[in-house]
């Protein structure tokens, strides 16, 4: 179940964000604030710049203009060391899961942990790994290689790899894409569990309206490089705007 947000502390703040690739303007002025404990679902067509948005937030891409602040720090102006320190507080779940395919599940989780929490001994590292694997329900897969996992398991291990650093903000890139409905439900439940247990704020990039409805406190529609509408799921999809209606109708199979 979604957590109620009554906290005014802003975790992610975006003002006037623009980004172009050559002559192609992808983001044309994004403004949004995400409060502590809030999940925001960003919806939009393929190529509308949703993934670019979270890559800018995590510092993987540089914005052309605008200010992106995470936990009060302006991402674009941080030194390499400060950005690295900030990234410890931001979890990023990739669309492709991006598990290190030459490492086992245990090594995938160990990799960021031992490099960032160097004071932990071997037992503490093992405990932390087992704890997050229990959270995502995949402790039995600890010694498997990524190639031996299903798509849904890879997504959950990808999320576990970010949780091991105890992030304060989560960025999910298409968490349910390419998964069967039952696995989608499991991932949606996991996103909610993360929000509740780790008190994270999150941006969830998705095409999946069920995912947005289930996991997000707020929904924003990204059209033509801007947020055309934002609000609760019900507020956004009460709109008669044709692009929003067609998005809704297609997702809920009300199409011919």
């Amino acid at each position, binding site marked *: 179940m979604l957590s109620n947000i009554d906290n005014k502390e802003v975790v992610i703040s975006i003002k006037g964000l623009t980004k172009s690739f050559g002559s192609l303007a992808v983001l044309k002025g994004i403004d949004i604030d995400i409060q502590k404990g809030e999940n925001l679902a960003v919806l939009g067509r393929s190529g509308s710049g949703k993934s670019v948005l979270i890559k800018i937030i995590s510092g993987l891409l540089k914005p052309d203009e605008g200010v992106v602040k995470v936990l009060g720090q302006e991402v674009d102006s941080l030194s390499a060391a400060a950005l690295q320190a900030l*990234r410890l507080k931001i979890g*990023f779940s990739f*669309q492709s899961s991006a598990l290190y395919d030459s490492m086992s599940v245990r090594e995938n989780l160990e*990799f*960021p942990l031992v490099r960032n929490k160097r004071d932990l001994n071997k037992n503490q590292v093992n405990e932390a790994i087992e704890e997050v694997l229990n959270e995502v329900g995949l402790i039995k897969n600890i010694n498997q290689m990524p190639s031996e996992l299903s798509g849904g398991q890879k997504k959950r291990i990808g999320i576990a790899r970010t949780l091991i650093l105890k992030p304060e903000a989560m960025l999910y890139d298409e968490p349910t894409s390419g998964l069967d409905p039952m696995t989608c439900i499991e991932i949606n439940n996991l996103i909610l569990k993360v929000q509740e247990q780790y008190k994270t704020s999150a941006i969830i990039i998705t095409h999946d309206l069920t995912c947005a409805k289930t996991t997000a406190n707020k929904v924003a529609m990204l059209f033509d490089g801007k947020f055309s509408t934002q609000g609760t799921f019900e507020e956004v999809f009460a709109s008669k705007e044709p692009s929003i209606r067609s998005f809704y109708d297609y997702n809920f199979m009300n199409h011919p």
Partner: protein
Amino acid sequence: MPPYEWKEIINQCYSVGYKSLPLISLTGFIIGIVFTKQSRPSLATFGASSWLPSLISIAIIRALAPLVTALIAAGKVGSNMGAELGSMKVTEQIDAMEVSATNPFKFLVVTRILASTLMMPILVFYSGLVGMLGAYMNIHQNELTSFTAFFKSAFSTISFLDINASIFKAIVYGFTIGVAGCYQGYYAQNGTQGVGRAANTAVVVSMFLIFIEEMIIVQFVNAIR
């Protein structure tokens, strides 16, 4: 800057060095035999067959061992680095390392360049040794020269400068292969096609640079000889 990636450096040394040994052994041995077989008739014409060990040692130590080993390593190690890092790049594994507050450049690139730079002199030394053994076997078969006599004759013409120059070449070639392979892989783009291109370009660029470097180093060594 800590943490130092010792484990990954050792892994890469194993991959670059130990796993290249079968190929290096085979090519080194064959080069030793073939070069001896091809050189014998010419020297025999002038009644200079006894110079065969000296000629072979000069050819192998000064030129063949470093150059052939480097070209083989460029093909095997360079393409491997280009493809591996390229694949990691297009599947967002490098981005995943970056967002999890680890330095992918240090873990993936520095370790590989260090490993290829450190392992290449060992491979060149080994290749030279195997080549000389191949040459000895062929000479022993034809001229019944003893092992001691062969190596005494072979090394009588090899100077300290020749050995140092070979080690220096190996270091330069190893560094070149590491940099070219990692650069092409780390900046690969456009999916699987980009991975193939990265592997291919890594080999082509490495080989091209190795030949250029060989020419420059030979000029330099000859100038100070």
